């Protein structure tokens, strides 16, 4: 494979004794998942050249189950229905189901890449290992073949958009005695297929969407399923009032119902359909609806009601052959699945660039724009109460427009950046969400989109 155009010519600069090849007029995109793909398309539409580096051999990121870091399992279906999942300018086929399967999402992303001619701009099998500031707000991006083979090469770009995903590096809790436990312990990212559960006694820890999906599969396949959660949640069904539940939610938003009323209607609807879950032994939610990342799962309650899932409280510690729970109960699973979520990792960036705090949390305006570095952005670092793709689409449109504005109206661009910087600690959720690292990037889609819409309008030349 030949490398990105720049290094055919002579090096134009040097960094630590190595050549740097100039890619003037070009923006570097890191990752060819949904976020990277839409970044490329939108940057190209605004007239920029793009080089995208992708460590895997295909597009689709998390949705490409062939990728070794893909978190999807064989049964994964979307939790956001089609209107919220598709890119706003590239509809999914309308004869697909309301909640397509992961293979369909990948087919959609593959088609997106072909339709917009993105593949020729992607350098597959190349991993970004360093991104460092260069003069004039430009960036030196160093890459090498995935897995550390071959030599490193450095190219200089006008801007960089980081789209490396945040659902691949397991967040692994520490439990006392975990290392002495004799059973098998895996993180949900290593869960691929229901066959892994068959005839096992399974403990699933965590009740995010992953934990709930796996608990349901365990109910269907395993000999026994305990589901441990450290708080009560609102388990929303995927369909309500004869339509995908998220569409009902947006009807309320369309009618401009205030948050309190939406919470009231939502909770009433859940109480009258899903019912009171404490009778199955689940704790009552310790918060109002919309104060934790939404769970969409119609089957969990069904299996609770059939006794195929045993809800249990938080884990206290691990013994050699058993697990002790906070309520003193001891259970004996032979497989423990930690569905405890993922953490963001930017191994190629100096943490200061994204103002990453001691806990590993970056501080970015709109969860996308770092302070002081107008030509750097992170795309897709969001945990929305809807689908992600439309949000990233508009994020990257905004970034492309801002970059253009820097050329055409530098003064105006500077004042927009200043305004953005003042919003670094602003939250974009309607309700005050529970304090948990899983909510670092939580946003309410409508509130967030309105902010992006405003930014895009303001970035008009």
């Amino acid at each position, binding site marked *: 494979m030949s490398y990105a155009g720049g290094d055919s010519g002579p090096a134009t600069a040097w960094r630590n004794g190595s050549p740097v090849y100039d890619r003037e007029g070009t923006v570097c995109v890191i990752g060819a998942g949904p976020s990277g793909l839409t970044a490329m398309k939108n940057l190209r539409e605004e007239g920029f050249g793009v080089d995208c580096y992708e460590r895997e051999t295909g597009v689709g990121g998390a949705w490409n189950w062939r990728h070794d870091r893909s978190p999807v399992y064989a049964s994964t279906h979307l939790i956001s229905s089609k209107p*919220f999942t598709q890119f706003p300018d590239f*509809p999914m086929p*309308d004869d697909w189901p309301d909640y397509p399967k992961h293979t369909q999402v990948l087919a959609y992303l593959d088609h997106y890449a*072909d*339709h917009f001619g993105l593949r020729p701009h992607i350098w597959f099998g190349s991993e970004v290992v360093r991104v460092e500031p260069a003069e004039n707000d430009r960036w030196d991006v160093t890459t090498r073949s995935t897995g550390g083979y071959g030599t490193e090469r450095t190219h200089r770009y006008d801007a960089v958009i980081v789209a490396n995903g945040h659902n691949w590096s397991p967040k692994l809790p520490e439990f006392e005695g975990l290392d002495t436990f004799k059973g098998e312990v895996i993180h949900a990212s290593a869960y691929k297929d229901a066959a892994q559960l068959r005839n096992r006694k399974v403990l699933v820890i965590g009740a995010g969407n992953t934990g709930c999906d796996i608990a349901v599969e365990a109910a269907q396949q395993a000999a026994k399923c305990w589901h441990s959660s450290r708080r009560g949640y609102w388990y929303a069904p995927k369909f309500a009032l004869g339509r995908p539940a998220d569409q009902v939610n947006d009807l309320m938003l369309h009618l401009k119902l205030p948050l309190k009323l939406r919470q009231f209607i939502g909770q009433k609807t859940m109480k009258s359909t899903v019912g009171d879950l404490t009778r199955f032994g689940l704790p009552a939610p310790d918060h109002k609806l919309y104060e934790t990342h939404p769970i969409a799962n119609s089957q969990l309650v069904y299996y609770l009601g059939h006794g195929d899932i045993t809800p249990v409280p938080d884990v206290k510690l691990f013994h050699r052959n058993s697990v002790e729970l906070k309520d003193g109960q001891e259970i004996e699973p032979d497989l423990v699945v930690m569905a405890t979520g993922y953490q963001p990792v930017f191994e190629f960036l100096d943490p200061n660039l994204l103002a990453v705090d001691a806990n590993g949390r970056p501080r970015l305006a709109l969860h996308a724009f770092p302070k002081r570095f107008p030509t750097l952005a992170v795309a897709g670092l969001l945990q929305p109460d809807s689908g992600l793709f439309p949000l990233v689409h508009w994020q990257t449109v905004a970034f492309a427009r801002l970059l253009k504005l820097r050329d055409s109206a530098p003064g105006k661009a500077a004042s927009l950046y200043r305004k953005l910087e003042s919003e670094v600690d602003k939250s974009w959720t309607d309700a005050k969400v529970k304090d948990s690292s899983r909510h670092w990037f939580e946003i309410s889609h409508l509130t967030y989109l309105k902010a992006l819409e405003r930014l895009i309008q303001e970035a008009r030349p």
Partner: protein
Amino acid sequence: MTVSVVRTKEWAFPVPPAKREVVKATPEVDTGKPPVLFVPGFGHGAWVFTEHWLEHTADRGFPAYAMSLRGHGNSAPAPKADMRAYAHDVAQVAASLPSRAVIVGHGAGALATAHALSRYPAKACVLLAPVFGGIGTALRNPFLCLPALFGAGLRLPAGQLFSREVPQNTARAYARRMGRASGKAQRQLLWGRDPEDPVGDPPILVVGSPDDRIVADNAVRRVARRYGGAPLLFPGMGHDLMLDARWREPIDAILDWLDKAN
């Protein structure tokens, strides 16, 4: 008008799916030219393009597609469709093609296309004898349009659609094949929303005829002005340029324009 980012109503009420007719003509060799999608107007089906234009476009190296809006041609019946459903049909077919499509919309199909342009970044777009509605259209053809307001079919007699150069029995045979759009969509021609701005900034060409008896000359100019240009006019032709005796001239001009734009 700009492009809306917040679309809660559209999200809460997605357009229901429909079986759509799509006819395809492929060039003999792949020339790398973009696909061209033809969108017929109200009452018309894909067949108006398969008569002459589709093959001709493929012969000139463009993969060519003609579709029928829901409720038209061989697409599934859709008596309740509205303008949004038609625009949705256009965007659905365009997005299904192998690469970014050029969309050529005719008559009221040009309005559906203009709406679709805010939901799909077309490679380029041609608005042919565009019926963008508004009261102007009604006044030019009061006898044609007023009944439509009350739900009757928008009738398109042969004399209104073709120039005299089309042999009478051919013209009559064409007119017999015409269907009708839904009552709701017809009313929306008069009172519907203005299309939002196109996304992806596609080059847009407006084509018409000063002798079109459905769309007034100044209405065509107004559409062209909205998209920042002057119309390309073919005097002596009727509203259905693609079926007229001199059908070759406009399509060649369009394809020349596309060749140049690329």
